[in-house]
C-alpha cells in the first residue's frame, strides 16, 4: 500500500483555494440522493452533520449519549484559536501555521496545518452568527487572551465554557437540520462495525443502546468523528463514554491507524484520591501564570506545606528553566512533576502530586485579584478536595488529556478505506506530536464546517456507487460479527469486574507507556497487555442480557477494544526511537533532559495496518517534508 496524502500543488498559501476550484461538485438537485452517515456529535461531528444537511445531503447522525449536546467536546474550557489579529499584536495566518507546526514538533503535515490556520478566521465568524456568546470588551468587540504560552492573543473564549458554547452552537444548527428533515438523528446508538462493500465504506452496524437491537445503516459515504482514545489510560480528563471502538473497528476493516503513541499529558489536574477514582479533573493551565510549582527539597518530607521553610523548598521549574519558569510547555511541566514524584519528593498522601502555590501571588496582588481571575477554579478545587487553595497550596499532578494520533487521513480527510472520512480528534492530521492549547476546538470545527462539505462532494462526484441495501452480504457478515462478539462477552461469566481490568490496563499504560517511555518499559507493556487481554476473555463478568439497556455490556466492549489497541500504541512507541512532542523516550534526550528528535530517521507519520489480533501490524510510512518551517530544537532554558 502506498500512502498518497493528495496534497494539492502550488504555494502553501494557495493550495486550499486551488483545491477548492479543482474539486468536483455535486449538482444541488442530486445532493439529496446521497446518504451520508456521520458518527459522532462532538464539535467535529455536529458541525459536519449540520453543514452537510444544509447543503441538501441526506444525513444520518449517530451518538452514544442521550442527546447530541452531551458529547465530550462540551467539557473544553479554555478557548479556541483564530488568526484574526484583532489585537493588532502581530498575528497572522502564517504565524498560527508556524506556531502549530513548531508546537507539533515537526511531525504534522504542513499543507493541512496551513489550511487549518486559514479556516480559523471563518470559524469565529460562523460561531458569532450562530449566537455563541463569546467574551467581549467594553467597546463591544470580541475579547482575546493569550493561551498555552503563545506570544500573541488569539484565543477566543466564552468564560470557562468555550467548548460548551461552541458545541451548543453546532448542536443547535444540527437540530435545525433535524427539524428540516435533512438530518435524521440516532442518539443512544453505538457504532460497532464499519461495512465495506467493493472496497468502499458503505454503512455501519450500530447497537441501539436502549433496546439492545443490532441495527444496519447503509449510505454512500461514512464520516467518523468519534473523538480520542485517552481513556485507554483508564484515568484521564476525558468523558467516561470516550472510546476507541468506532476507530478501532474501522481499523480492523482496513483503515490505517497513524501515530497512536502521540498522546498528550496535561500538567495541572487534580490528583488521584484513591482506587475509586473514575476520572481526573483538569484545572485550567492559566493557573500557572500566578501559581508557583514546588516540592520539598528533601525526600519523604511529610511536613505540612506551611511548616516547610522557604529554603527547604525546591521551585524546580524556576530553578531549571529560568526564562520560562512555571510557564514551560505542558510536556516539560508534566515530566518534571513525575520526576519529582519518582525521586520521592511528591506531596500529599499518595506522593503523586506537587504543589501549586498562590501565596506569593496573593501577597503581591491581593486575594481579590486572585479571586477575580481564578475564583471558579478555586471553588471547583475545593468541591473535589475539600481544601481552600487561598490558604494551602493546591496539589496538582499530570493526567492524560488529548490524543494526537488517530486514523490516517489524506488532505481530503479520507482514510485508506475509500469513502470513510475521519474528522476531529479521531484523525491524526494536524497536531503532529503535540497539540497546542485551544487548537483542538479549532480543528474539529474547521474539519466539520469548512473542509468536509467540499471534500466529500468531490469524493461522491468522482466515484460510481451502485445502490447498496442492508440485505447485502457485507451487512449480514458485519452484523453477525457484532452479534458474535456480544454473545462471547456475555458468555465468559467470570468473576472479575470490567472496571478492575480497565484499571489494571490503565496502570500498565501509565507506568510503562506514559510520560516517559523506555525500550524496557515498552517491552514490558507489550508482554503485559496480551496477558491481560487473555485474562479478560477468561475471567470477565458481564451480567445482564443483550436485548435491553446494558451498560456493563457497553463498557466491556470498549475495554475489549482497548485491550487490542493498547498493544498498537505501545508498539508504535517502541518503534519510534526518538523523543518528540508528547512522546518522550528516555534514551533520546539532550544533556539538559529535553526531548531530542531524530529527524534523519523519524520524520514520518507511522500508519499501521491491521493484520489480526496478536499478530504484528505492518507499518506504512508517510514521509513529512518541511518547506516552510524548518525544524529546530526546542529550548525553554
Amino acid at each position, binding site marked *: 500500500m502506498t500512502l498518497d496524502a493528495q496534497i494539492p500543488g502550488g504555494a502553501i498559501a494557495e493550495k486550499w483555494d486551488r483545491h477548492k476550484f479543482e474539486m468536483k461538485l455535486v449538482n444541488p438537485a442530486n445532493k439529496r440522493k446521497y446518504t451520508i452517515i456521520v458518527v459522532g456529535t462532538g464539535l467535529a461531528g455536529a458541525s459536519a452533520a449540520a453543514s452537510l444537511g444544509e447543503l441538501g445531503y441526506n444525513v444520518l447522525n449517530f451518538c452514544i449519549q442521550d442527546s447530541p449536546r452531551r458529547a465530550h467536546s462540551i467539557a473544553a474550557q479554555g478557548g479556541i484559536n483564530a488568526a484574526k489579529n484583532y489585537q493588532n499584536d502581530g498575528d497572522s495566518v502564517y504565524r498560527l501555521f508556524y506556531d502549530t507546526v513548531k508546537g507539533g514538533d515537526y511531525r504534522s503535515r504542513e499543507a493541512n496545518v496551513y489550511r487549518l490556520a486559514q479556516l480559523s478566521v*471563518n470559524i469565529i465568524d460562523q460561531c458569532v452568527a*450562530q449566537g455563541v456568546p463569546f467574551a467581549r470588551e467594553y467597546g463591544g468587540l470580541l475579547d482575546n487572551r493569550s493561551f498555552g504560552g503563545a506570544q500573541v492573543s488569539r484565543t477566543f473564549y466564552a468564560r470557562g465554557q468555550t467548548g460548551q458554547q461552541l458545541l451548543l452552537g453546532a448542536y*443547535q444548527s444540527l437540530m435545525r437540520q433535524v427539524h428540516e428533515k435533512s438530518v435524521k438523528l440516532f442518539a443512544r446508538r453505538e457504532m460497532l462495525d464499519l461495512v465495506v462493500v467493493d472496497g468502499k465504506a458503505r454503512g455501519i452496524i450500530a447497537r441501539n443502546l436502549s433496546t439492545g437491537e443490532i441495527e444496519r445503516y447503509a449510505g454512500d459515504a461514512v464520516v467518523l468523528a468519534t473523538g480520542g482514545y485517552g481513556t485507554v489510560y483508564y484515568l484521564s480528563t476525558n468523558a467516561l463514554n470516550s472510546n476507541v471502538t468506532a476507530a478501532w473497528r474501522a481499523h480492523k476493516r482496513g483503515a490505517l491507524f497513524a501515530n497512536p503513541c502521540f498522546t498528550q499529558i496535561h500538567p495541572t489536574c487534580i490528583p488521584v484520591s484513591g482506587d475509586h477514582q473514575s476520572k481526573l479533573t483538569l484545572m485550567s493551565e492559566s493557573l500557572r501564570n500566578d501559581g508557583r510549582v514546588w516540592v520539598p527539597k528533601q525526600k519523604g518530607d511529610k511536613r505540612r506545606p506551611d511548616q516547610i521553610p522557604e529554603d527547604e523548598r525546591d521551585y524546580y521549574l524556576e530553578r531549571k528553566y529560568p526564562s520560562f519558569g512555571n510557564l514551560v510547555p505542558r510536556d516539560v511541566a508534566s515530566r518534571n512533576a513525575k520526576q519529582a514524584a519518582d525521586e520521592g519528593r511528591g506531596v500529599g498522601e499518595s506522593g503523586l502530586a506537587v504543589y501549586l502555590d498562590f501565596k506569593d501571588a496573593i501577597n503581591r496582588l491581593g486575594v481579590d485579584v486572585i479571586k477575580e481571575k481564578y475564583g471558579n477554579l478555586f471553588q471547583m478545587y475545593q468541591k473535589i478536595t475539600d481544601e481552600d487553595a487561598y490558604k494551602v497550596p493546591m496539589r496538582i499532578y499530570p493526567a492524560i488529556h488529548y490524543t494526537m494520533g488517530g486514523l490516517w487521513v489524506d488532505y481530503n480527510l479520507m482514510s485508506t478505506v475509500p469513502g470513510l472520512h475521519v474528522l476531529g480528534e479521531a484523525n491524526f492530521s494536524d497536531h503532529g506530536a503535540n497539540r497546542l492549547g485551544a487548537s483542538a476546538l479549532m480543528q474539529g470545527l474547521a474539519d466539520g464546517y469548512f473542509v468536509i462539505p467540499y471534500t466529500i462532494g468531490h469524493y461522491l462526484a468522482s466515484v460510481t456507487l451502485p445502490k447498496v441495501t442492508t440485505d447485502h452480504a457485507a451487512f449480514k457478515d458485519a452484523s453477525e460479527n457484532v452479534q458474535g462478539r456480544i454473545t462471547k462477552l456475555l458468555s465468559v461469566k467470570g468473576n472479575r469486574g470490567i472496571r478492575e481490568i480497565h484499571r489494571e490496563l490503565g496502570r500498565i499504560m501509565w507506568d510503562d507507556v506514559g510520560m516517559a517511555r523506555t525500550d524496557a518499559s515498552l517491552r514490558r507493556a507489550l508482554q503485559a497487555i496480551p496477558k491481560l487481554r487473555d485474562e479478560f476473555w477468561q475471567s470477565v463478568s458481564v451480567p445482564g442480557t443483550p436485548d435491553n439497556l446494558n451498560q456493563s455490556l457497553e463498557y466491556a466492549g470498549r475495554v475489549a477494544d482497548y485491550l487490542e489497541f493498547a498493544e498498537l500504541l505501545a508498539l508504535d512507541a517502541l518503534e519510534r526511537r526518538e523523543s518528540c512532542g508528547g512522546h518522550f523516550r528516555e534514551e533520546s534526550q539532550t544533556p539538559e533532559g529535553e526531548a531530542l528528535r531524530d529527524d534523519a530517521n523519524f520524520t514520518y507519520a507511522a500508519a499501521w495496518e491491521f493484520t489480526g489480533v496478536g499478530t504484528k501490524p505492518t507499518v506504512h510510512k508517510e514521509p513529512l517534508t518541511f518547506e516552510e518551517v524548518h525544524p529546530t530544537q526546542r529550548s525553554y532554558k
Partner: protein
Amino acid sequence: MNLKLRIWRQAGPAAAGRLVEYAADHVSPDMSFLEMLDVVNEGLTKKGEEAIAFDSDCREGICGTCSLVINGVPHGPDRGTTACQLHMRRFKDGDSVTIEPWRAAAFPVVKDLIVDRSAFDRIIAAGGYVSVNCGGAPDGNAIPIPKDVADLAMDSAACIGCGACVAACKNASAHLFMSAKISQFALLPQGHPERHRRVTAMIAQADGEGFGSCSNEGECQAVCPKEIPISNIARMTREYVKAALLAK
C-alpha cells in the same frame, strides 16, 4: 463510612419499578456520589448481578447527563452542584440515601435511573437556534455587542440541559430550560430576526410534549446546578406576549 441505599430499579419502560435496598460499605469521603455508585456496581457485577443503570459522562458538571434525585432533591443537597460533583463527605456514617430517576411524564424511564430526555432536543429543534447556514457569515466584529449584554446572554446560555428544573417542578414545567435559550437569543442581536417565531414555536412544542405550565413556585431555580435565575422566565413571558400581540 457505611450507608444504606434505597435505589429505584425498573427493568424497562413498561415494567413496574420499585425501591431496592443496597449497602454501600467503606465509602471514602473523597469519593464523588457517582463513584460511590460505581463501587456498588462493581460489587454487583463481580457477583454476576445486573448493575444499577444510571447515566453520566463528563463527571465535572458540564454535560448535563447525570440525573439523580437524591433524597427527594434533583442532584442532591448541594446548591449549584450536579450529582457528579457531589462528594460523599456531605454524608455521614449510617445515613440512608434514596436515589430515584427524574420524574416527569415527558421524561419516561428507560431503565432504573435513566430517563429519556429527547423532548428537550425536540424543543430546541422547534426553534432554539439562529437560522444561519455555514459560510457567508459577516466578520465576527461586524456587530459590536455591549459587554454587559454579552455577559447576561452567557449567564443564560450556561444551561446544561440536564432537566433538573423539570424534575423539581410540581407541574413538570420546562419553562426554565426554554427561557434560558430564549433569553440568550432575545438578548443578542443575532437572535432578533427570529425572536417571535422562536418563542412561539418552542412553547408550542413543550406543550405538545406534555410539560406543564409555570406557576411561579421557583423550585426550578433552587435545584438548577448552574443557578439560572427565574428572571429568564419573566423575559420569556414578555417575548411570548409580544409575539402574540404582533401576530394579531
